[in-house]
């Protein structure tokens, strides 16, 4: 079975909510919508305090090349614009909306029927995705329309759809691929048209046999879309690893997938593209998994952006007594939340609640030079060495050892028998090394 070649680990899958159908979460009383929810230049505010808004109203505009629009997920009145900590823990400009009813913009097609025919031209597709704020929903939240604008001199020949969901616990893509299959497949056809390629490959790990079987059946009606089962191995959902696993092309160090003629999009993004292009619906809701070993009812919810995380936790039976850590995202790459004040943003794929015992790290011992981190690093790096260089401030040496190739998948720290905080040090090293490089380039 296909998989990527170098490194990789297999953490316990813990997909507690994989059998739970997507439920629609009720609209919050108050929505907290962070102004910039994507990777790239900040969006510029388009509303002010006291404005009456509807679901789908443009709240902020992405004016730079790599930026994204933001739309309201609720209808009501803008109560205030304030600085509130988001998932990263930092205070960010946030639009607070007092919710009144659920009134949608007229332009949005609210009907439930599936619109199959793709009438939009490639240019219109890209424009629609840009206007309606589509970003990558796998977690990186890179503005999706930018990916379709292939730079001069490069050519894409394959579209890859990431349905791997290699993070333990998370099941939002799993459920979406099962329940919104047709919409997602139309979304893929739209992306293919936008990118002007003939072939699309969907990569799904073998721990989701129901999805693979269902997709294989459904894709018979969609020419040019293939489904590939992949061996379960983390981090297969990392785009470079996924490309390697599916078509055996290796993205050069420091380059983007387009270098090898590939564009990768998440399965959830494909669904959002369908809704945007076919239904004129901006990206203002997404599927979020709320899970954890102590959680009463691990679930998958369709959630409006801006819903406070506390409401998601209420919906699964409240915060367990022994909660030690709350993570936005999965356990391998997610961010630990500072408080429940923050709200759902476009990039939040799951909320994972860990108990006190799980929240505790192993005691840190000496490195015993077992070489495990070297053998599992999917980028072929030497994590122990990078961590050591970072610890002692030798960032130039770290740069020579390709520290910037690190994708922060966390496999090294996961696997270290001495419990060493390898990735903590490597992150520090990456930040410092980038700074050094920036300063060097300035001169």
């Amino acid at each position, binding site marked *: 079975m296909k998989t990527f070649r170098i490194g990789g680990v297999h953490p316990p899958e813990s997909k507690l909510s994989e059998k739970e159908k997507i439920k629609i979460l009720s609209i919050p009383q108050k929505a907290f919508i962070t102004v910039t929810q994507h990777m790239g230049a900040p969006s510029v505010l388009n509303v002010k305090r006291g404005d009456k808004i509807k679901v789908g109203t443009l709240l902020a505009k992405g004016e730079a090349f790599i930026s994204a629009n933001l739309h309201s997920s609720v209808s009501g009145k803008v109560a205030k614009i304030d600085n509130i900590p988001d998932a990263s823990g930092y205070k960010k400009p946030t639009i607070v909306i007092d919710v009144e009813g659920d009134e949608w913009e007229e332009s949005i097609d609210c009907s439930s029927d599936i619109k199959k025919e793709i009438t939009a031209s490639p240019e219109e597709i890209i424009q629609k995705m840009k206007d309606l704020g589509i970003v990558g929903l796998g977690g990186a939240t890179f503005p999706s329309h930018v990916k379709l604008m292939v730079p001069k001199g490069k050519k894409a020949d394959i579209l890859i759809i990431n349905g791997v969901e290699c993070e333990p616990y998370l099941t939002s893509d799993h459920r979406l691929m099962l329940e919104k299959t047709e919409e997602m497949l139309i979304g893929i056809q739209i992306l293919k048209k936008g990118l002007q390629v003939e072939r699309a490959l969907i990569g799904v790990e073998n721990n989701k046999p129901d999805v693979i079987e269902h997709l294989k059946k459904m894709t018979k009606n969609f020419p040019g879309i293939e489904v590939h089962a992949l061996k379960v191995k983390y981090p297969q959902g990392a785009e470079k690893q996924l490309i390697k696993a599916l078509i055996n092309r290796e993205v050069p160090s420091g*380059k983007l997938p387009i270098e090898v003629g590939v564009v990768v999009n998440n399965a959830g993004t494909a669904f959002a593209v369908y809704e945007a292009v076919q239904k004129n619906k901006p990206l203002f809701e997404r599927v979020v998994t709320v899970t954890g070993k102590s959680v009463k009812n691990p679930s998958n919810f369709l959630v409006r952006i801006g819903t406070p995380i506390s409401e998601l936790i209420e919906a699964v039976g409240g915060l367990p007594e022994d909660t*030690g850590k709350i993570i936005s995202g999965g356990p391998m790459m*997610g961010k630990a939340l*500072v408080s429940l004040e923050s709200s759902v943003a476009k990039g939040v794929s799951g909320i994972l609640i860990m108990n006190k015992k799980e929240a505790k790290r192993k005691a840190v*011992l000496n490195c*015993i030079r077992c070489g495990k981190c070297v053998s599992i690093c999917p980028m072929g790096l030497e994590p122990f060495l990078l961590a050591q260089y970072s610890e002692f401030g030798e960032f130039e040496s770290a740069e020579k050892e390709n520290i910037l190739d690190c994708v922060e998948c966390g496999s090294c720290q996961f696997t270290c028998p001495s419990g060493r905080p390898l990735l903590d040090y490597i992150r520090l090293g990456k930040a410092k090394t980038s700074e050094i490089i920036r300063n060097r380039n300035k001169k």
Partner: protein
Amino acid sequence: MNLLTISGSPHIQDDQSVKKIMYNVIVAMIPALLVSFYYFGYGAVKVTLISVASCLLFEYLIQRFLIKGKTSINDCSAMITGVLLAFNVPSNLPVWIIIIGAFVSIGIAKMSFGGLGKNPFNPALVGRVFLLISFPVQMTSWPKPIESARQLTDAVTGPTPLAVVKEGINNGEAVSDLMTKIPTYVDMLLGNSGGSLGEVSAITLIIGGIYLLFKKIITWHTPVSFIGSVVIFSGILWLVNPEQFVNPLFHLVTGGLMLGVFFMATDMVTSPMSAKGMLIFGAGIGILTILIRVFGAYPEGVSFAILIMNAFVPLINKAFKPKRFGEVVK
């Protein structure tokens, strides 16, 4: 509301730990240990117990009174050093020599560098080589298996097969004659021949090694390249002149070779980190072993070969990097 833990990802860790690795190594050594008790009896039990106890004690004392840190003896690494040191000495070694060996292993080779993970050389081998050079007589009087097990004192001693062959060849005897003077291959494989107490039984060491491979404590790279280079190098010599050089199989089942392959050369701390590095490391040990055995002054060369290659590990780590993903060819 109770406080939340904040930390960087990843938020989960594998259940592997240093302690578990060490336990597994100890489990892997049990078959060889039992065989040594069978062949060498009380002597083997005594040497093992004293070696392990003094290694643990030295580690505890040094940690407690010199380094003044947390005691590390419960990570079991000192216990492994103790067993390996015992494996590397004759079963009739006087108690005081064993204690000196333990002190050199733990005190000098391990703790003076900062303890587990910091030592450049394999501690048990440093101890053994120190004893071999300091006490050559006691270190090379090998009790005969079975016979010595029946006696509590004054064990009957005899040379190891390697020593028989080495001396014979030096005296100009032909290999085919010498082969009649040593135990059969089956005996040497099982352990019914003279030697250090843990090295005699190749088969139990191989079983232990397979266990370690199965448990993913060690990888195949070092053992395969070590054995491979021994076979190739000694095989070439043997093909050139089978009356002057012994066949590769003899080299594989005698002396400390299997002990070296699976328990010494694969020591995580003192071996390279990358797969390529391990292949080079193992091949180097194999070639040096045969060089010393065939052309050197000592009949056995595994310990020296491993220690010499230990010294090359930092260089190997620098020179042989793993293949980077998406490496741009310059």
